[in-house]
């Protein structure tokens, strides 16, 4: 009871802090301290949001980016999870793939943009591939690490009960590493967003990155800021959804 009261009062503090921040920003703009071209007032951004919701553009751009992140991220995770578990449990194949992974890992997703444009053009596949290239190698490393954190005693016990090596991967390593894999993927989801925004900033016809770049071209700083705010909100919403999903995947941690 008391703990809950405290939680509520902290929430009040957070809301107040946000309101004060917005109020200061708004007043500084209205009093003419800040040039609207450099930083428009919050109400201006809100007005732009209303306009863009009415003509459907805001939803269109947000959905386009979200879809790209989700597709690229899902494909990358679906490949990285089994592959990572396999590499984490086989020293030989780890040695085979280690040099390649070490070469790919330091490459920022941005560096793939020219090649991907050359290979795939300004297409949706190109966007997915950027998200994939940006998140695959780091995801793989998270998963390999998670695999190595499994208590070897559990693997021993499973083998002693008649599990084959493949059974061990499916029945012991995957569920045992899952909490860590999910924690890693949560971080990767954030990285996937930075990938898609950079890809859209460079070459795209829709998406939040395109919206920001396009806003800049027409000196609509409010559109630029609205795009940035939308990225924050979307990532926050996805994070909440992800957390719900995580709980139902890991019933034993409750």
């Amino acid at each position, binding site marked *: 009871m008391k703990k809950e009261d405290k939680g509520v009062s902290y929430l009040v503090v957070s809301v107040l802090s946000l309101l004060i921040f917005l109020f200061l920003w708004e007043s500084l703009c209205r009093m003419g301290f800040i040039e609207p071209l450099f930083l428009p007032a919050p109400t201006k951004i809100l007005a732009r949001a209303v306009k863009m919701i009415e003509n459907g553009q805001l939803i269109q751009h947000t959905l386009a980016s979200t879809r790209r992140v989700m597709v690229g991220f899902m494909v990358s995770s679906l490949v990285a999870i089994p592959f990572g578990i396999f590499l984490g449990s086989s020293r030989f194949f780890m040695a085979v793939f280690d040099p390649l992974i070490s070469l790919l890992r330091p490459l920022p997703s941005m560096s793939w943009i020219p090649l991907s444009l050359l290979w795939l053009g300004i297409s949706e596949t190109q966007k997915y591939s950027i998200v994939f290239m940006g998140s695959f190698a780091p995801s793989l490393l998270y998963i390999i690490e998670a695999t190595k954190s499994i208590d070897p*005693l559990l693997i*021993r*016990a*499973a083998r002693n*009960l*008649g599990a084959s090596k493949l059974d061990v991967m499916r029945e012991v390593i995957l*569920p*045992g590493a*899952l909490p860590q894999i999910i924690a890693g993927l949560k971080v990767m989801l954030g990285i996937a967003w930075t990938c898609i925004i950079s890809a859209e900033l460079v070459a795209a016809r829709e998406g939040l990155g395109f919206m920001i770049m396009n806003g800049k071209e027409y000196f609509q700083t409010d559109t630029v800021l609205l795009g940035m705010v939308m990225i924050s909100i979307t990532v926050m919403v996805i994070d909440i959804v992800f957390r719900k999903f995580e709980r139902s995947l890991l019933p034993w941690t409750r």
Partner: protein
Amino acid sequence: MDAIGKHNKISALGVTKTFSGKRGEVIALKDLSLDVQEGEFLVIVGASGCGKTTLLNLMAGFDTPTDGQILLDGKPVTGITPECGMIFQQYALFPWKTVQDNVEFGLKMKRMPKAERKERAAKYIDIVSLKGFEKSYPHHLSGGMKQRVSIARSLANDPAVLLLDEPFAALDAMTRQVLQEQLVRIYEKHRKTIVFITHSIDEALLLSSRIVVMTARPGRIAQDIVNDLPHPRNADVQLSDRYIELKRTIWNSVQTEVLKSMEVETS
């Protein structure tokens, strides 16, 4: 056919095991030979570091001897075998599986149909008196309950030999006594061949039909005693002259070994 109790279930034949460590080679076991007969409850007693766990790991096939052989029913053990069910001191339950699913694990690996495996698991959960906890996850259970799940999990898999590596060492005295009694009842009912490791002489005397005392590094057999104490081994038996005599004999040889191993460590 051999008469019951005369058939060698699992044997170590001139087994030597060395490990290469940072400070050179360590001889854990040296030319050790031991026959465990079918239906025997063998308890191995020894000071820590005498290689008793190494011997058990070799029997389970987790490791292979540097020299010599482990024979199960006369055939050499070459890899991990579910025929030798291991029960670990740290329980080794799968935290993401419920009690039911943990007990079913070995059966699932045998691809037994779901309905059959459920029925079988229920039987063994009942044997270790954990009815009503089928849907609990291990972290909701006490240490004693976890070890009972682990015993049920092994029994459900119906191994030829049960290997127990100091299974009750991490439990409090009361729980330990309850589990010891439960294990004796299971042994009397199912007559499995059991190899049990402990450093408690009382535990050895209470449980075993035969006791082997191991020497300190390199591990060899110092003493091999048939435990002829009458069953049930209640308080009266534990105060009998025979009990005290056996305990003294074992203690004398364990003590020598402990002192020897201390000398090795300090020299």
